[in-house]
C-alpha cells in the first residue's frame, strides 16, 4: 500500500464532493487508482477520457505511482 494525495477539479470535484483527499491505495498506476475511485464514487467519466498528472506533470496512465505522490485526474478540457 502507498499513500497518495489526490486533488479533484471540475466534474470530478463535484461528483466526489470534495477538492482533495489523502488515501491509502493498492493501486500502482494512475489508471488503476482512477478505476478504484470511479467504482467508489460513481464518477461518470470513463477512464479513457481522463488524463493524469503526478506532482504537477502530465504522466502516462500506466506510469508508476509512488508513496507521497500528488495525483490529479484531468477531465476533458473545455476545448473552446
Amino acid at each position, binding site marked *: 500500500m502507498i499513500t497518495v494525495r489526490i486533488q479533484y*477539479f471540475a466534474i470530478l470535484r463535484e461528483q466526489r464532493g470534495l477538492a482533495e483527499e489523502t488515501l491509502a491505495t493498492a493501486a500502482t498506476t494512475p489508471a488503476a487508482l482512477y478505476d478504484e475511485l470511479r467504482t467508489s464514487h460513481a464518477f461518470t467519466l470513463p477512464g479513457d477520457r481522463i488524463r493524469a498528472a503526478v506532482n504537477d506533470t502530465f504522466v502516462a496512465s500506466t506510469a508508476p505511482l509512488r508513496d507521497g505522490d500528488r495525483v490529479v485526474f484531468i477531465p476533458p478540457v473545455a476545448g473552446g
Partner: protein
Amino acid sequence: MFRISPAPLDPAALLRALTDARAGACVTFEGWVRNRNEGQPVLSLEYEAYIPLAVTEGDKILAEARAKFSLLGAVCVHRIGHLALGDLAVWVGVTAEHRGAAFDACRYVIDEAKARLPIWKKEHYASGATAWINCATRGEHGSPDAPPPA
C-alpha cells in the same frame, strides 16, 4: 508570458506590455462569454483551472509559438471564476515584424490553449441546468450535468 487570473483582464494594459519599436504587427484574440452554446441560452460561466500545470503548459505553448514563428512578443492570460455574459475569458496577444507570423502564432496559441490547458468550463443555462463542457457522458439524461440538448 502566461498567466491565470482570478480578476478581470485588462486588455489595454496587456497590449501596452507588448509595446516594441521593432513590431509592425500585433494580433490579439479575445474569447468572450457568449449568450448561447449549441442553441441553448447561457446565463453565465464558471472557469476552473489546475493552476500549476496550466501555467507550465501555457508557458510551453508560448515557447512553441516563439520557436515556430518569427515573433517579438507573446502573451496569454486566462480568467478563472464566475463570468457573466460578455466577460473576457481569455486574451492572447502576439507581436511580430510582419503580420503573417503574428496571425499564425496567435491562432496557434489559442488553439493549443483550448486543447491542452487543464481548464474547465461550466455553463449555467436559463433553464437552471448546468453542464461541465466536454465532460458529458452517455446515460446522464436529467442529471444536473447533462449536456445541453443539440
